């Protein structure tokens, strides 16, 4: 330790030492320390190198607004860059490293950039990397050449390429009152709302509640403020209607009073709790929000203001009071307001020597003067810091007289100091209010933007609304809590606050400049190395809008989003333009308030990107060697391959088995919709192109459905199970789409129809049994019904039992063979499947997968979603015979539009590979064999297979002219797979065109 620790002060637990490393060196701190406080306690002042100039940088703040001290945390192979050392809680085994330096933080080659600093002003990239108008580096090529080097010479931390295996979580929460920020106003607001019986969530971004009460040194109700905060917190924690969320920052305010927050559940632990997420993404729906987010102290912009050891005055006070660390032994104070006097007195009482208090103002309040006397050190009114000295840490400052505009003059006084604590006033943290409100309001007295008028249901209190004293914050917090609870504001006596009476109004000085303007770099945005001169340069070059200023100079960008730089930057621009600050505008804050891990945002699907949808027979398929393939969310067997078989060999074997004897396929994935009600038949007549009201009970019919625009939506068979009851089947892929379509029609177009739709896709397990011996298998397996041609004709439906399980059987065919679909309760699916297989054993029944299913339907010329792709009409697929002329139906009014009836549309054909090579789905059909100039595409292939029935590679295609091209030769052009070759265009009915096999 460096001797910077103060005995018995702060929230740290001195009985729990913690060991950690920074840049490979071992350090120790205490539980409760942040990395910043622990390193300061160890005498470390250099934390990182700046973005562009590689200037040495220390700690500027003690909180989430930190622009400088960003580090990378290493956990195993994982690197998490750009973590503010001020927010990072240390734990045993913590490994951290500094950023943007090579080979070391102390000796950084990149610091040579400082020599070229005049070149790297605002707009450097835009001006320098335009590229010549001619030559090999013309245009953006020059930038692309240089980008590699620039990205290594400038920047923040470096991430890794390893997968993030940490768990993340999500939580949906509801409350009557959400209080954001747990300082004195937040605690009293929470207490008031909770006492009124409201459900309260109190969020705090730090590990402990209390906010400024933890370090202000004031007394509340006769107790040290930190003790008061702890007692209030304990009381709230004991209330069942209160949830305390620490280590949680609320980062987004969305419509409907919905707020997003990130809880850092495990970042402070050496090892995560079992099952606990690293971060938890909270979605909080609040009745009323009370914003008590406090205020950020502003720096003053002056030459050399980025030297390590320069920090905000309240941060210096906080390190001493909350972490028991003196940021320096000999501390100078530089301010334009009274609040820094409080810090001076506190630091002095903690053991620091106050070198001087430099105040830009000529007169100060009595309270400030008393605090200055307590603090000691020379009080220099009407003066300002005009420069700093030191290399990797501050060693001294130069002080000169200053006028009301911030211009220094006269002789410089040198003062030695190892820390300069600066205060430029306070900016309320209005970020969330800005997301849920109008434009912020400028307050001339406070020299700050105050919260806007709300557009959602929130109330503010405390420093957030400009309250300057803790007493005011307590009163405002209580009234906000009462108001949020629906009660009247209270005049009840608040806890008495013992604090010095100070003037809350700062002097309107944001920047200190020398009369000649040549006094070194003065940084506005420390994180992105934006100087005051950069702001003025932007103004000279015409970027006067604050939005343009941000984009040209990068002011206010990156991880801190300009929490310390926005207002000074705006003030400098306003001064350059000769206008008032509010006239220069302000950036409206967007989410997130502070960085959010992408893992947390993806938490709901982390590790489970999409659910697996399984058929009742899924486990059987897997156990019997099926190779499964995705079909949307479903998993379906692709093939049941034998050892050594290729995919093609497997599906050809399976398809052959179907054509020669019998095969079975799991069709449970088909969409199934129960359509019930006295108007069910009328409804189906309206949604299908063909008529269903004439369909007898226990019969099925193939149907086509169009969209309103006349294009095909889906096809499938619908079974009439009773006078008022139908079972509609859809393609697997379109099940959800069809259900939505039908529900919309019923709800919006025809609410007068008494029809109920229910998805029963999961109620039924479906097995299609196909092949010349299919009926024989059923005859063996089915009890309670005959299945002969008379009892069960084509498109007939019977009910019976298989192995004791009730089944419903419909005779229909997708394969072109004699085929049946056997439906049973999903819970009986495997039982019935196995019973059918056993019954089919004498006929060598094989299960077959999607590839064989596809092969059989291609041979037959049946269409699926591959052809019904949202762009085709019924005519395109030669299904116009199904378009009823006797009734209107959805799409009938639009299907005859000229464009949909044109002769030159692409229409369904079959194609045969003429070179004996496989075809590729999606390949184009062209008229020329030339690979370089294949000429215009006349269509594309939708489905391909090797046909065991034809012993050829065949496919279905949509080709310009359709039938008119039968017999023509064309070519397939598949540049992606480098497949070119001749094909013949033929009828899509490759196999058994008269249907004798399936009707047999």
């Amino acid at each position, binding site marked *: 330790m460096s001797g910077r620790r103060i005995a018995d002060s702060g929230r740290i637990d001195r009985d729990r030492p913690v060991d950690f490393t920074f840049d490979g060196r071992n350090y120790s701190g205490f539980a409760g320390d942040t990395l910043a406080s622990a390193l300061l306690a160890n005498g470390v002042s250099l934390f990182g190198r700046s973005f562009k100039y590689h200037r040495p940088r220390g700690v500027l703040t003690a909180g989430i607004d930190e622009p400088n001290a960003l580090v990378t945390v290493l956990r195993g192979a994982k690197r998490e860059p750009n973590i503010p050392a001020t927010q990072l809680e240390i734990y045993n085994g913590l490994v951290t490293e500094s950023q943007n330096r090579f080979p070391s933080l102390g000796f950084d080659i990149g610091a040579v950039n400082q020599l070229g600093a005049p070149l790297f002003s605002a707009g450097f990239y835009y001006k320098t990397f335009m590229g010549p108008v001619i030559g090999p580096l013309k245009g953006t090529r020059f930038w692309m050449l240089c980008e590699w080097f620039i990205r290594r010479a400038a920047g923040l931390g470096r991430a890794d390429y390893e997968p993030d295996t940490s768990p993340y979580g999500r939580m949906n929460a509801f409350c009557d009152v959400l209080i954001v920020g747990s300082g004195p106003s937040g605690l009293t607001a929470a207490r008031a709302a909770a006492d009124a019986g409201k459900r309260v969530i109190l969020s705090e971004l730090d590990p402990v509640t209390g906010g400024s009460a933890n370090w202000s040194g004031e007394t509340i109700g006769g107790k040290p403020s930190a003790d008061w905060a702890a007692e209030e917190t304990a009381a709230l924690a004991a209330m069942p209607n209160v949830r305390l969320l620490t280590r949680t920052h609320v980062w987004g305010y969305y419509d409907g009073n919905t707020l997003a927050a990130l809880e850092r559940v495990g970042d402070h632990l050496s090892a995560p*709790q079992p099952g*606990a997420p690293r971060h938890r993404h909270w979605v909080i729906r609040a009745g009323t929000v009370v914003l008590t987010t406090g205020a950020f102290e502003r720096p003053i912009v002056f030459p050399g203001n980025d030297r390590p050891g320069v920090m905000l005055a309240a941060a210096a006070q906080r390190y001493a009071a909350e972490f028991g660390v003196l940021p320096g032994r000999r501390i100078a104070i530089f301010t334009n307001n009274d609040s820094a006097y409080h810090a001076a007195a506190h630091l002095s009482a903690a053991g620091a020597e106050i070198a001087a208090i430099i105040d830009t103002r000529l007169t100060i309040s009595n309270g400030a003067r008393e605090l200055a006397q307590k603090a000691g050190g020379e009080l220099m009114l009407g003066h300002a810091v005009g420069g700093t000295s030191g290399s990797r840490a501050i060693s001294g400052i130069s002080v000169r007289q200053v006028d009301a505009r911030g211009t220094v003059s006269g002789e410089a006084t040198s003062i030695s100091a190892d820390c300069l604590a600066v205060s430029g006033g306070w900016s309320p943290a209005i970020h969330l209010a800005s997301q849920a409100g109008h434009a912020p309001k400028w307050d001339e007295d406070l020299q700050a933007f105050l919260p806007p008028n709300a557009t959602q249901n929130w109330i503010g209190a405390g420093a957030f609304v400009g309250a300057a004293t803790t007493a005011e914050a307590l009163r405002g917090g209580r009234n906000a809590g009462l108001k949020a609870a629906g009660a009247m504001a209270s005049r009840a006596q608040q806890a008495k606050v013992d604090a010095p009476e100070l003037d809350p109004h700062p002097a309107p000085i944001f920047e200190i400049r020398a009369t000649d303007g040549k006094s070194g770099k003065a940084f506005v945005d420390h994180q992105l190395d934006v100087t005051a001169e950069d702001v003025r340069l932007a103004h000279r070059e015409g970027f006067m809008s604050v939005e343009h200023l941000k984009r040209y100079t990068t002011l206010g960008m990156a991880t801190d989003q300009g929490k310390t730089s926005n207002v000074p930057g705006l003030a400098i621009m306003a001064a350059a333009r000769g206008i008032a600050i509010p006239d220069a505008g302000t950036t409206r804050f967007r989410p997130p308030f502070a960085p959010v891990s992408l893992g947390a945002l993806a938490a709901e699907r982390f*590790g489970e990107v999409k659910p697996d*949808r*399984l058929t009742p027979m899924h486990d059987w398929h897997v156990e019997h060697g099926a190779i499964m393939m995705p079909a949307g*969310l479903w998993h379906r067997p692709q093939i049941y391959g034998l050892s050594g078989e290729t995919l093609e060999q497997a599906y050809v074997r399976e398809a052959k088995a179907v054509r020669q004897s019998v095969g079975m396929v799991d069709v449970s994935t088909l969409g199934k919709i129960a359509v019930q009600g006295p108007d069910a038949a009328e409804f189906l007549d309206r949604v299908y192109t063909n008529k269903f009201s004439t369909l007898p009970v226990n019969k099925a019919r193939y149907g086509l459905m169009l969209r309103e625009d006349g294009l095909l939506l889906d096809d499938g068979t619908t079974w009439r199970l009773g006078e008022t009851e139908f079972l509609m089947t859809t393609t697997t892929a379109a099940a959800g789409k069809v259900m939505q379509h039908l529900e919309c029609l019923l709800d919006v177009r025809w609410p007068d129809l008494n029809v109920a739709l*229910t998805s029963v896709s999961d*109620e039924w397990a479906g097995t299609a049994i196909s092949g010349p011996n299919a009926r024989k298998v059923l005859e063996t397996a089915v009890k309670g019904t005959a299945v002969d041609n008379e009892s069960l004709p084509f498109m007939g439906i019977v009910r019976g039992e298989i192995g004791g399980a009730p089944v419903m059987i419909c005779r229909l065919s997708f394969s072109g063979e004699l085929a049946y679909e056997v439906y049973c309760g999903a*819970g009986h699916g495997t039982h019935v499947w196995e019973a059918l297989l056993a019954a089919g054993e004498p006929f060598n029944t094989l299960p077959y997968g999607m590839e064989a299913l596809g092969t059989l339907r291609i041979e037959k010329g049946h269409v699926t979603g591959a052809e019904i792709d949202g762009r085709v009409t019924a005519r395109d697929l030669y299904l116009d015979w199904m378009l009823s002329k006797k009734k209107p139906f959805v799409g009938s009014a639009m299907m005859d539009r000229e464009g949909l009836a044109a002769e030159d549309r692409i229409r369904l054909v079959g194609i045969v590979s003429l070179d004996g090579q496989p075809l590729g789905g999606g390949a184009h059909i062209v008229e020329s064999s030339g690979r370089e100039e294949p000429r215009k595409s006349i269509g594309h292939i939708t489905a391909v297979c090797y046909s065991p029935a034809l012993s050829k590679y065949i496919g279905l295609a949509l080709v310009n002219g359709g039938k008119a091209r039968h017999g023509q030769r064309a070519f397939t052009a598949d540049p992606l797979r480098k497949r070119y070759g001749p094909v013949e265009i033929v009828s899509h009915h490759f196999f058994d065109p008269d249907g004798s096999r399936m009707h047999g």
Partner: protein
Amino acid sequence: MVERESPLGTTYKPGRHGNVVNAAGVQLSEPRPGSIVEVVAWPGMEKATLAAIKKAAGLTVPDHPGGGILKADTAGFGFAPRRWLVIDQVEGLGAALRTEIGSETGAVNDLSHGRTAIRIAGDSAEWVLSKFFGLDFVIGAFPLGEGRSTAHHDIFAQIQRTGKNQFDVYVFRSFARAFWTSLCHAAAEDGYEVL
């Protein structure tokens, strides 16, 4: 009678899992009721339908959105306008409801195979379910017996509160294993016991 196969398969592993430091935060189980039946009433036939449910299932289902009721072996709740889910521990409720609810009154769909009931019980039940659903699970907002329709992304869910700290979640059978797996992951933080 052929026994119904559970869709959860080998993912259903009885015993303690996840965080075992403290008592299990939740108990997970698959109640496997014999009957899960959806009832729909035509507009204006709501009271007649509820009367029919009472006659067939002995349940007086409240006539307000989400209203529900619990009995020892039966339960029912509204999950959408004019729609209810009625549950019985034994099979056959669908047929009984069909007898009472003619096509002039409404429609009945037996979903006993198509929906899977998953029960989550214990002190952390609300907490764990809140990880999935944007619903307010506190008992004041979600009273005992009531039901809600919601979804966790691709998975539609109907939820009934069946105890102070107990909920039955009905999901499509094909999604049951995926939902169960996600539920186990979500419950690991508090520790869970599969009964």
